[in-house]
């Protein structure tokens, strides 16, 4: 599988994820400058965390118009995989590849912590490395990670099982006190209706190297590789 990591001015998690993909998982990975539009050789586009364009106007608002993101829309429309982490999630909602928006945290704090969350379903490549209902712990680090959408959108997300990760307490209960930022329905990560576009505020790439003391994020990448490799074989 070949990965393309979009690099915006102000991105700061691009090399973290490239390290996991290249050095931990041994996958070919290309850094894609935001002014490049060619993604034809890439299987999975990663929109990394950080502060693209300084978070000016709104987080992710300006990044959506870059040539690389315009090509990412075409990539997603072909049914290929796109994942947005943190600021990448904000970019994907701003451009409409995912519904809703990420707004200021409920308590105004920038939250930098390790947070438990449940894996809501595991029948997609993104989460097939986990058990359904499994409680994992991933780092979060954001000031604008409160997931918001209107009632109809939330209902449609839940009805179509598009919530993949949900903040919870140590026992897997999605309570208000276990919600770090005020996200509606404790939403930490969602996919689009087709399931090929993932957006999540937590950072799996910061929990994928044993040297960092937590590898709960590694199963996401390993499951993704297995899922895409097996579907590629079926297609061939």
């Amino acid at each position: 599988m070949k990965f393309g990591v979009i690099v915006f001015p102000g991105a700061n998690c691009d090399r973290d994820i490239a390290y996991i993909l290249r050095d931990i998982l041994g996958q070919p990975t290309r850094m894609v400058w935001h002014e490049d539009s060619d993604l034809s050789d890439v299987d999975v586009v990663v929109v990394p965390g950080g502060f693209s364009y300084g978070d000016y106007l709104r987080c992710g608002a300006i990044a959506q118009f870059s040539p690389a993101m315009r090509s990412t829309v075409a990539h997603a429309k072909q049914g290929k995989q796109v994942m947005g982490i943190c600021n990448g999630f904000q970019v994907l909602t701003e451009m409409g590849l995912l519904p809703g928006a990420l707004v200021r945290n409920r308590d105004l704090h920038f939250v930098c912590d390790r947070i438990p969350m449940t894996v809501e379903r595991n029948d997609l490549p993104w989460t097939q490395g986990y058990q359904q209902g499994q409680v994992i712990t991933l780092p979060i680090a954001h000031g604008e990670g409160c997931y918001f959408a209107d009632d109809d959108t939330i209902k449609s997300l839940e009805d179509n099982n598009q919530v993949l990760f949900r903040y919870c307490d140590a026992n897997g209960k999605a309570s208000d006190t276990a919600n770090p930022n005020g996200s509606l329905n404790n939403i930490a990560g969602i996919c689009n209706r087709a399931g090929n576009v993932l957006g999540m505020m937590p950072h799996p790439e910061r929990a994928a190297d044993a040297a960092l003391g937590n590898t709960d994020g590694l199963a996401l990448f390993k499951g993704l590789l297995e899922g895409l490799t097996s579907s590629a074989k079926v297609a061939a």
Partner: protein
Amino acid sequence: MAQSADAKAYNAKVYVTLRPSVLDPAGTAVRSGLSHMGYDNVSKVRIGKYIEVELTAESEVAAKSQLDKICDQLLANPVIENYRIEILEAVAV
């Protein structure tokens, strides 16, 4: 965009506000600060953005139409925000 020589200059004021259904924790924090200052008659504060845009257009209608697009596409996020535009013809200096 191609415009004729008699295109006029306009100054636009764009007000972007959070939709009523979206919580505004920053506004709540400011209200709490005002309360600490003794302004306990202030019941609500909502914080938005004010953006000035200078542009040229064939007419005020054309300017408004373009600014609507600019707001829908970039200046406001319709999921969480509303916007209001005021347009004034720029006075020639």
